[in-house]
């Protein structure tokens, strides 16, 4: 099943970095998933988060307020 990933963040350096890491992990491991950037603040606030960047996988908030590592993302996507 293809996973839907969202990166929430108003477009700061950390958010871009997170987005890039996600894309790399997906390509390197041949994972079926789509990554989408969410930069609209009203949309971001629907997830009730206080710090960005945030990684949302299938509408579930997994990482907030920091740039994740590749292995972390891989673990999250495998489940």
């Amino acid at each position: 099943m293809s996973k839907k990933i969202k990166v929430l963040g108003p477009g700061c350096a950390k958010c871009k970095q997170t987005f890039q890491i996600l894309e790399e992990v997906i390509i390197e491991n041949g994972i079926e998933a789509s990554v989408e950037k969410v930069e609209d603040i009203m949309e971001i606030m629907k997830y009730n988060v206080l710090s960005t960047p945030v990684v949302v996988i299938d509408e579930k908030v997994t990482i907030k307020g920091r740039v994740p590592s590749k292995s972390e993302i891989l673990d999250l996507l495998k489940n």
Partner: protein
Amino acid sequence: MFDWIQNLADWLVFDAFGMTPKEHLSEALNFFIYDSVKILLLLFFIISLMGIVNSYFPIDRVRNFLSRNKLYGLEFLMASLFGVVTPFCSCSSVPLFIGFVQGGIPLGVTFAFLITSPLVNEVAIGLFIGLFGIKITAIYVISGILLGTISGIILQQLKLERFLTPWVLQILENAQREQDAFQEEKQPFSKRLPIIWNEVLNILKGVVPYVIVGIAIGGLMHGYIPEGFFEKYMDKENLFAVPIATILAVPMYSNASGILPVVQVLVSKGIPIGTAIAFMMGVVGLSFPEAMLLKKVMTFRLIGVFFGVVTLCIIISGYLFNVIL
């Protein structure tokens, strides 16, 4: 405590490089090596420490605490104290602001947090200990906390809610003291460590180049500017020095943390410490990029009042330090 670093710098410059002591170039290089090693170690230590604290006390908990407890006026001080241990990235300021408003936390309390969080952060503390010693650092930290608290109280009194942007006002109307329990990530320390480590490296990577350049410039100035050079222009009697220094500092971004080593040299050459602290608070605490982000939730008028009150408090504390130190 840092003697061994001085020995290391002495050995490198005078023995390994074979330079002659008491010359401008060798003294400047010695100062550069000593300062860089010392400051990088301190930065590493403080950032790691804050990272560990923050891993167990994330921002969500801060909000829940402030939202749930009635603190009878102490909430301003609490918000300000939380600001110290919570790292702050200006790109998070908007979600953070709205999250606090949603949780029914008063505007002034939110401001207290927003002021102290960038002002007293791990990078500033690490640099301060390295450059000015424990005593001045303690003064900086305590006055930063008080500054956030007092500015928050003043801003609360001004009843600024009406100057929020309309959609935030709507959120304010629906605000509730939320009861949804924050799902804490129950992780053992061994699992948290790599995450904290990663963050520490990221923060260091971001500031180290600026700090090194700052120390290098400071080192050059240290060797070449005569003692007491600035006393002529910026002595304590000069009433305009503090406001001018503060206002110059506000547009500078926090990456100007590289400026702190330069300021330290200026202080050793005769600029009063209060003027210098006011300048550094302006650099670290307020920035234009932050103002631009806040534009989404506040009208220009509110941002103006916010920055105005904080700037004023910084200027007052600058005068205060010049009198008492």
